[in-house]
């Protein structure tokens, strides 16, 4: 038996979290087959076939697979699932939306958002916003698993030559229709995979003040994050939100500015290697997880921070 990994892609490129999911899948069983469902996505099939951990690529094409609607994807996954012991995808909005639909069709109790593979049937997953970790054992014959991307290294992307097998598409689910996607384009590193993240909270006071964060992020080649409070207040758009219901990030350096540190925010960033907190309230909970805390007014500290960075001879990229 092998693992069936559902690839996330945009019909042109493999999305980065698929690489982390392949690593996790190969810890469950070394026979990882990738299922690619899309429209005119031949380049993606080729890219996947070159990943050494991938033993086979199953490739299905149809116009109604263009926009990854779970209602269209799930029946195909169910159809090819018979010969697999595990069905795996990443626990981002793609996998969260899709996997439970597959699991219910197969009458499987899904294990969500695992951070560690103990054995092929036993996994560790965070609960209560990461305030506890549960070790769980799935007793279903087949497992449906989503993996927390930041807990697994990305797999190698070259050197392999897996066969690509074309498979037949399933019918379209006509009751759901994709209308549009508004993606925010950015030249910065992606929040989920960036080495450095600079985040702002309610303390930023308004959207214009995020310029102070942007300037530092530019200097450090960092992604920009935000607390839910800052997003809800309209200072910055939702795809920047870090936390229990936003994105989970594990950068080498996380700089939290004007963020008090609600449990829900800490859930999204407290595994970061180094945490810096800049806040004028010395009692703010964010200081309890910070390696370096600076109790200061951010409107004075951030311009100084930029000056200090400008004085450095070199900055790691």
């Amino acid at each position, binding site marked *: 038996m092998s693992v069936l990994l559902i690839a996330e892609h945009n019909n042109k490129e493999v999305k980065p979290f698929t690489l982390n999911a392949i690593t996790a899948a190969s810890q469950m069983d070394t026979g990882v087959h990738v299922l690619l469902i899309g429209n005119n996505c031949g380049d993606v099939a080729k890219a996947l076939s070159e990943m050494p951990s991938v033993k086979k690529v199953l490739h299905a094409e149809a116009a109604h697979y263009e926009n990854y609607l*779970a209602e269209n994807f799930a029946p195909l996954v169910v159809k090819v699932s018979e010969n697999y012991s595990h069905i795996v995808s990443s626990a981002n909005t793609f996998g969260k939306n899709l996997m*439970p639909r597959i*699991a219910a069709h197969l009458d499987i*109790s899904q294990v969500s958002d695992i951070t560690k593979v103990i054995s092929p049937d036993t996994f560790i997953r965070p*609960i209560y916003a990461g305030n506890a970790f549960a070790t769980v054992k799935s*007793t279903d014959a087949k497992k449906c698993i989503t993996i927390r991307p930041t807990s697994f290294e990305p797999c190698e992307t070259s050197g392999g030559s897996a066969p690509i097998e074309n498979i037949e598409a399933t019918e379209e689910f006509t009751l759901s229709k994709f209308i549009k996607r508004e993606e925010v384009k950015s030249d910065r590193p992606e929040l989920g995979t960036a080495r450095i993240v600079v985040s702002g909270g309610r303390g930023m006071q308004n959207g214009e003040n995020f310029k102070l964060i942007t300037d530092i992020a530019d200097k450090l080649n960092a992604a920009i994050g935000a607390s839910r409070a800052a997003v809800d207040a309209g200072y910055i758009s939702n795809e920047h939100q870090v936390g229990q219901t936003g994105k989970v990030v594990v950068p080498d350096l996380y700089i939290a500015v004007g963020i008090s540190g609600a449990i829900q925010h800490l859930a999204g960033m407290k595994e970061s290697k180094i945490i810096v907190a800049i806040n004028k309230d010395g009692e703010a909970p964010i200081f309890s*997880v*910070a390696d370096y805390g600076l109790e200061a007014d951010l409107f004075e500290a951030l311009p100084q921070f930029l000056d200090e960075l400008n004085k450095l001879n070199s*900055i790691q990229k």
Partner: protein
Amino acid sequence: MKILVAVKRVIDYNVQVRVKEDGSGIVTENVKMSSNPPDDNAIEEAVKIKEAGKATEIIAITVGEEKSQETVRKALAVGADRGILIKTEGNVEPLAVAKALQKIVDKEKPDLVFMGKQAIDDDCNQTGQMLSALLNWPQATFASKIEIKDKILEVTREIDEGLETIEVSLPAIVTCDLRLNEPRYASLPNIMKAKKKPIEIFTATDLGVDIASRVQLIKVEEPPKRKAGIKVASVAELVSKLKNEAKVI
């Protein structure tokens, strides 16, 4: 139009949860319980639709122990018309919850089912998608905006890349994001009135649903503690530490 809203009773979001000393679970004795926050958004949205004259009845449902009636009562106080409790003991996995909800959907035939996108206790994010699979209905997950257009629902979804808009035909399942609306507080007169609204009680056996656990909980542990950090006196010291001590910039 009839709307079914599924809610869950969970440890209040402000409580710092503690792991039991024997590693068998989370301490729930003498801990403040509340409704799952995004379920409040689900109720709010249903009530707004009814207030706009587009729905005739809202049914609030929960799966859980006897005390979960409190959570249904809260929904009734905010504007749901009647309640249903499917009484269970211990942890019930999302697949089992979805199967129990399916039985009620078969019976009540709602046009819409709302629920929060994720419960903040087990963080599974599964039930809505599973219910739509079992019913073979459309699913609109992580909804931050909803517009009803006759028998079609236009839903804006929160996705990693930004926002996505889809249209689903009714009947459909919607799982709600915290950004969907601002849940209201129940007024005292409405809390009093809610006490008189009916709550029907079923067991899993009544419904003929197998809710046996498929995922065994082996143990629960505290997350690794971060070592205590330091306070720096100035920005210059901070940058120097990051450069020379942590070596991250």
